[in-house]
């Protein structure tokens, strides 16, 4: 049978068939790989939580180290009350990124998870989860707070699409480790940690931003200060 390749009906039929084939294959690929991807995301979260506590792990031992070092997980509200109606699974899987995106949830109604753990030297730490906005997309991370409720023991940040070599450097130890030993209080009340450009990051309450990654660095600054202030309400309550 000879087709008229330029007829309208052939063009329509050909396009529809191609799109259907592509659609079916893509759907099957996505469904077939869904479990693997979900597992990767879960382990990545565990690695990030451990990294905030100063424990290095990889995709092989992440799950094991996580269960060894992390204990209680629970939710708090923005006034600093512990919410016992949510269980551990809910708290682990709670998506602070989604909450950050969702403009229908008022700031005062936001809830946040806390991971209690013990670092390698046996000190109790509270790992706090946060989300904010970078240049191209969301940034998120974990900050580990010592049980004096004011000293940061570690931080780990991540992003979905910041520029490699520029904004993406927030996810490297070079940037993250600057938060270690910074204090979040001054004279008994909450104090911001500033991201600076002038190279004075060694000073207290300051960390150096990333050259060429100013918007991302400032996004991290806003996220860390905004979220830690909310968490601080909880620590004031249990002090």
């Amino acid at each position, binding site marked *: 049978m000879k087709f008229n390749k330029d007829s309208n009906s052939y063009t329509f039929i050909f396009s529809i068939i191609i799109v259907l084939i592509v659609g079916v294959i893509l759907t099957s690929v996505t469904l077939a790989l869904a479990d*693997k991807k979900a597992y990767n995301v879960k382990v990545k979260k565990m690695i990030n939580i451990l990294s905030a506590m100063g424990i290095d792990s990889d*995709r092989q031992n992440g799950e094991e180290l996580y269960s060894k070092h992390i204990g209680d997980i629970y939710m708090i509200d923005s006034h600093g009350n512990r919410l016992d109606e949510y269980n551990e699974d809910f708290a682990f899987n709670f998506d602070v990124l989604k909450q950050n995106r969702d403009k229908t949830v008022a700031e005062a109604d936001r809830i946040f998870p806390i991971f209690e753990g013990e670092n390698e030297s046996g000190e109790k730490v509270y790992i706090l989860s946060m989300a904010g906005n970078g240049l191209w997309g969301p940034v998120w991370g974990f900050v580990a707070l010592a049980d004096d409720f004011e000293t940061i023991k570690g931080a780990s940040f991540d992003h979905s699409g910041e520029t490699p*070599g520029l904004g993406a450097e927030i996810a490297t130890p070079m940037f993250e480790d600057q938060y270690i030993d910074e204090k979040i209080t001054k004279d008994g009340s909450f104090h911001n940690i500033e991201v600076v450009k002038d190279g004075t990051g060694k000073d207290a309450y300051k960390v150096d931003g990333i050259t*060429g990654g100013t918007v991302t660095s400032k996004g991290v600054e806003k996220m860390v200060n905004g979220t830690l202030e909310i968490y601080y309400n909880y620590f004031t309550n249990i002090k």
Partner: protein
Amino acid sequence: MSEVVEKTKIIEEPLFSKKNRKLVTEPLSDNNPITVQVLGICSALAITVQVEQAFWMGIAVLFVLMIGNLAISLLRNLIPSRVRIIIQLVVVAFLVIVVDQLLQAFVPDVSEKLSVFVGLIITNCIIMGRFEAFAMGNKPWPSLLDGLGNALGYAWIIMVVALVREVLGSGKIWGASLFGSNIVGEETGLYAMGYMNNNMMILPPMALIIVGVIIWIQRTMRKELIEE
């Protein structure tokens, strides 16, 4: 009789004939997609800060370009000419999504490193360029070779650019420090002697300047590439 002879001649053309080898070797130098055709410049700017990213980007483009060229070439006599660009776009988008999904599932660390740039392969002009200029008019095997040649031509240029930028901009190759540690206050190696990374190298315009330098060197060596 002579017609029959003519036909068998075409069929029996060896897989790696001189003409077919040229399809692979030409894009590496004299017809390089980046330095001669000046295509795919946008991704050459974006992912050439680190060699590792440039390498994985090269692999991803290689996969998409070879399979894509093959698919378009197989479909070339069926594709209605009025919608051919859209069909090409569907094929490249499909392949890129598959690559992205496979990376996420099997090599999640690489997927995180490349982040959004995998998706941007769709807009890489080299791919649409080869589909339209070559695969639409040639048989599957030459198209596959053409895809291989152009992807390699793209990959080696971006890796050279990334090498220059990573060494001079971050003092590293493939993430490994070359000149010691440059953590403020605890410098070692060259940094302790006052060496500093050139931060300008990290910024996108420097990729363009390095590509320009490569074009300059290439045209000095091969005068026939210089346009009137």
